[in-house]
Each structure stands twice: as structure tokens, then as C-alpha cells.
């Protein structure tokens, strides 16, 4: 052990120092100690399910206290406070990751048996009241609605970002930038209400429901995301490329189409993929405007359509006589949805990594 000379020398620069790695040892022993306590409690209770989350959480809290006291005794108050804050900040990270771990753990355990059944992707819920059935109608609806939303959003979003980067100056461009930022924060349910109000006014039918209405609602959420990401990417295209093109006498619109966009295409693809991942899990607008059904509906422009998020919600909210079957299907589609979103995120990152132009910097 290092000598404690704090009492003789109050100067914190020359005070004692805990040996390297002390923090890790204290952390491991705190976890171990709390783990043993939980284990003993389990023995007393007779339950055999070990509380891992509790162990990690309370063990980390014990570590925070222990390292502060230890450091205060050996290193003085300033360093003790530094160590305490370091420990607390590491704790916040653990606290933030615990829900993610718990969520993924739960969804995989509850959902995996469901999606491994071959019928899950080949059958709809038509005339199914108990076990069996599948999410075919929901997958079809999700694909069609998201595709239509993408077809609406990408041209508008991309052209807007081109306007903001290449043409826009003055008050109008500033207003659009500000409004795009504000639009990013529109609650998704308000987008759904907007689509509902729009289609009811156009068709005059107060009970209007269709997949296309859902696409319009999703576009309201998706457009600002596409604009923001494309704008950032277009700004990264070096000005020298544009100037070289102008110097050769190429008109501005051809410069944008043939020089700027090809340079930025990887980044734009990444942005669009992330935007799709953002809206594919939206439920609230679809609840209002797309409705739900248990049969397959290929027609985007008429009648109610099922989507994966709505499938999860209805399986949970309208449980039939055999509740377990409905919950199993809800977890299975939750796993499907998370997998789709994560694959989309992965594709986006891979495109960004491998297809972006090699810059000189």
C-alpha cells in the first residue's frame, strides 16, 4: 500500500495515490459482494432466478460509494471528488444501456419461437382466433405503405436540399431551414391527424381509411429527415468540383445532376435508408388513418390495411380468448420489426463506409 501522508502534507499534488487498477478491483468486488447478497436472498426465498440487472445496478452504486471513501482517505478530497464523478458518469452509461439490454433480451426470448414457425410469414390472421396465423398481411402493408411514403418523400426532400445548398439565399432559404427543423419535431400522431383531416375533406367520408393516407402521414415525418441528411451531405461536396465544371462551360443544372449528385450519392442513400428506418416503426399515424384488418389487402388506395407496428398493437390490445397466442404473435412481430430496422441501419452504415468517395483529406 502507498503511504497516507495527507495529514502531514495537505497539498493534494503530493498526497498519496491509489495504485493503478484499484478502481477495477473495487468494481469487481462490489459486483461480487452484491451478487452474493442477491444469491443469499434467493436461497432464503427459494426462488432460483438470479437478478442480474439488480446485481449490476446495486453493485455499481456500492462501487461509487466505496471508491469515494477509499480515495478520500488516501488521496484527499479533490481527487476523491474526481473519482466519484468518473464513477457516477460510468454509472449513467450503465443505467442507459440496461433498458436496451433488457428490451433486446425480452424481445428475442419471447419472439424467436414465433418467427421460427414457417407459417408466420406465409399466413394472414383471417379467421384465426387461437394459435397459428401469421403476419403476412402486416408485412405486405408495411412494405407498400413505406414504399409509397419513400416515393413521395425522396424527390421532395432531395430537391429541397438541393435548393437550400445550391440556390437558396436570403429569407426564404432561412425560413425553409427553420421550418424543416421544426417539422422534425412534429409529433407523429399529429401527422396522422393531418392526413385524416386532409382525406376526409377531399373525399367527404368521415370514416375514410386507406394505406395511401398512411403513406401521406409518414411522408410528413420523413421529408424533413431526408432534407436534413441530404443537405449535410451536399454541403460536404467540395466547391472545387463545381468550379471545375463551371469552368468547362457546363450549365449549373447539369453540374448538379452530373457532378454534385454522383459525388454525394452514397451519403444520400445512407440518409434515405435511415429515414425509412425511422418511419417504418411508426404506429400512431397508421392507427388513425390506415386502420387495421386481419386479411391481406394489396390495394393501397382503398380499405383498411395492416402494418407490422399496428399488428403488434392490435395483438396486444385486442387479445382473444387465448391471450398467450396473441402475445406470442405480438412479440414475434416486435422482433421482426426490430430486425428490419437494424438491418436498414446496418445497410446505411455499410453504404456510407464503402461507397463514399475517397476524399483527399
Amino acid at each position, binding site marked *: 500500500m502507498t503511504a497516507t501522508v495527507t495529514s502531514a502534507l495537505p497539498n493534494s499534488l503530493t498526497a498519496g495515490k491509489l495504485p493503478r487498477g484499484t478502481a477495477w478491483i473495487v468494481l469487481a468486488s462490489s459486483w461480487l459482494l452484491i451478487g452474493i447478497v442477491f444469491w443469499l436472498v434467493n436461497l432464503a426465498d427459494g426462488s432460483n432466478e438470479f437478478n442480474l440487472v439488480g446485481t449490476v445496478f446495486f453493485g455499481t452504486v456500492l462501487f461509487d460509494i466505496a471508491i469515494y471513501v477509499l480515495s478520500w482517505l488516501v488521496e484527499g478530497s479533490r481527487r476523491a471528488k474526481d473519482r466519484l464523478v468518473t464513477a457516477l458518469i460510468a454509472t449513467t452509461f450503465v443505467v442507459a444501456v440496461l433498458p436496451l439490454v433488457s428490451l433486446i433480451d425480452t424481445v428475442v426470448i419471447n419472439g424467436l419461437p414465433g418467427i421460427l414457425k414457417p407459417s408466420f410469414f406465409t399466413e394472414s390472421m383471417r379467421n384465426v382466433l387461437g394459435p397459428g396465423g401469421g403476419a403476412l398481411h402486416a408485412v405486405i402493408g408495411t412494405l407498400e405503405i413505406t414504399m409509397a411514403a419513400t416515393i413521395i418523400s425522396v424527390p421532395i426532400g432531395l430537391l429541397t436540399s438541393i435548393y437550400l445548398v445550391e440556390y437558396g439565399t436570403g429569407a426564404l432559404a432561412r425560413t425553409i431551414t427553420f421550418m424543416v427543423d421544426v417539422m422534425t419535431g412534429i409529433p407523429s400522431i399529429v401527422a396522422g391527424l393531418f392526413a385524416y383531416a386532409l382525406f376526409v375533406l377531399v373525399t367527404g367520408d368521415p370514416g375514410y381509411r386507406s394505406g395511401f393516407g398512411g403513406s401521406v402521414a409518414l411522408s410528413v415525418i420523413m421529408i424533413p429527415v431526408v432534407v436534413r441528411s441530404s443537405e449535410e451531405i451536399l454541403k460536404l461536396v467540395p466547391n472545387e468540383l463545381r468550379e471545375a465544371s463551371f469552368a468547362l462551360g457546363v450549365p449549373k443544372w447539369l453540374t448538379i445532376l452530373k457532378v454534385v449528385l454522383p459525388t454525394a450519392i452514397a451519403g444520400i442513400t445512407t440518409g434515405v435508408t435511415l429515414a425509412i428506418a425511422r418511419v417504418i416503426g411508426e*404506429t400512431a399515424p397508421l392507427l388513425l388513418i390506415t386502420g387495421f384488418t386481419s386479411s391481406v389487402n394489396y390495394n393501397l388506395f382503398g380499405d383498411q390495411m395492416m402494418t407490422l407496428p399496428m399488428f403488434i398493437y392490435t395483438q396486444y390490445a385486442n387479445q382473444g380468448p387465448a391471450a398467450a397466442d396473441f402475445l406470442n404473435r405480438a412479440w414475434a412481430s416486435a422482433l421482426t420489426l426490430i430486425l428490419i430496422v437494424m438491418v436498414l441501419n446496418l445497410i446505411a452504415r455499410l453504404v456510407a463506409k464503402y461507397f463514399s468517395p475517397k476524399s483527399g483529406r
Partner: protein
Amino acid sequence: MSTDKIGIIRTKVRAGDRVFSTSTLLAGSVILVVLAAVAIFLFVQSMPALVAPPGTLPHGAPSFWSYVFPFVFGTVWAAAIALLFAIPISIGVALFISHYAPRRIAQLLGYIVDLLAAVPSVVFGLWGIGVLAPTLQPLYKWLNLNLGWIPFFGGQVSGTGRTILTVGIVLAVMVLPIMTAVCREIFLQTPRLYEEAALALGATRWEMIRIAVLPFARPGIISAAMLGLGRALGETLAVAMVLSPAAVVTFFLLTSRNPNTIAGNIALQFPEASGIGVNTLIASGLVLFVITFIVNAIARFAVNRRKEFSGAN
């Protein structure tokens, strides 16, 4: 591009240029039109509810404003609880990634937190009701029994854990990624020289963060909190699934009669609503739109004002 000054060659305006620039301008204007249309259509559809005579509204509310007040309260209350948890944790996580974690794994840790943003809200709802609520219920019982004298923990404790406190925690988890991302960006923008100067004067790492990083990042932290607030106010499905609602105004955190949020109420009532009920729900949606619009506008204004310094969004 072209100017009218003598001696400067004026470029010929080509048809392609004109068509292309006009179409980009149109696309940009579509965004303004859509935003205006959202406000106008919602307003037109909510008019019948706003002028409705007493007795025709749902729950026998005397006027629209007395109908919507408990939901406005619930929306703000749930979002406030969420921010209470999310602000310290997001600052901590952002500091951990920007100043504490080793450079090499910092980016990986950032991805892990971003993964939370990839989880759809309906899955959070399923997790909240299936895992979080049962886990927290014994804790609620203990809090109610031992700390019931604190007003927030009083009342009849919920047997299912589907309380507004659980909703606040789920919302906190959901707004964590965006708040962490904004805070992280701003912490990384702190001038390197400030940090090194503090360290050279003998400051510990925490003292360096307190005197150099946090003062620099304060406006950014505030706007991150506002952005998180905007998200928490509008979150729908997690609230609709987890909360056990009632049309009450109460500060009790642990009971089974909780104030519902505007968004949660719309999601629960809309599929069965008809006639003036639909108009009332749309009008409450308009109220939500106005609240979130103001919150987001303030947040964006604060971020933009410091754009030269911060790289946030």
C-alpha cells in the same frame, strides 16, 4: 449568377437551368405549404368542437377547454418526469463518450446508444407493460409504504405498476438517444485549448469539465433538453399502452388513476370516436401541435444562435 454591371459577361439563361431551379424552389415551398396545411386542416376540422354548445362534448364537458385541460396537464407532467430522469443521464452518457471512454471504443459506445433510437415506440410500449411495470411494482409498494408522507408517493398504490412514473421512465429511455447525441456533439466542440489550460493549471478531470466544458456547453444542453421535451410531449403508443388512465389532475405518481396525455388519449379514443368526438380529438391534437411547435421553435432558435460554435444538427 448574372449581374447587370457593364463589362461583365452575362450568362445565357438556359431552359434547363430555369426548369431545374424552379422545381427545387417548388419542392422547398411544398414544405412550407405542408406545414401551413397541417395547421389549417387541423383548425378546420376542430372548429365544430371549439364552438360546440355545452353538453355535446364527450364526458359531458362544459367546453372544449375544460375537456382538454386534464390531458394538457398529463402531457406536460409525463414529459417533465421523463426529463427529470433523462437530463442527468444524457449529460453523463455524453460526457462518458466524449471525455471519459477511450477514443477507440467511444464511437462504438455511441452506436450502442443510437440503437435505442432504432427501437419502434410500440415495442417500447410492449416492453414497458411486459417487463418494466412488473419489475417496478414492488419498488412502488415500498415507496408508498415508507415514503407515503411525501405527497408524490401518496394515494392508493397501483397493483400493476402501470403508473405515470413508469410512463415517465419509458419516455426518458426513448428521448435519451437524441439528447445524448446533441450533448455529445457540443461537448466535443469545446475548444481544446480551454481544456488543456485547465489541466495545465493542475485541475483534475472533473474540475476541467466543470470550469471549461460545462459553461461552454450550457446553451447546447438547454436546447438538447428542449428537443427531448418535444419528443416526450408527442410520444403516443408507449403512453397509450403502458398508462392506466383516468381524466384526473393529480400529482400522485404511484396510483392506478393517472392523468392521460393528449397523444395517448387520441390513440385510445380515435378508433371508436364518431361525429363531434372526432372533432374534439382533432382539436386536442391541434393543441398538442401548437405546444410542440413552440417548444421545438425555441430549441431550434437556441441551437441556431450558436451555430458558429456548436456542431449540433
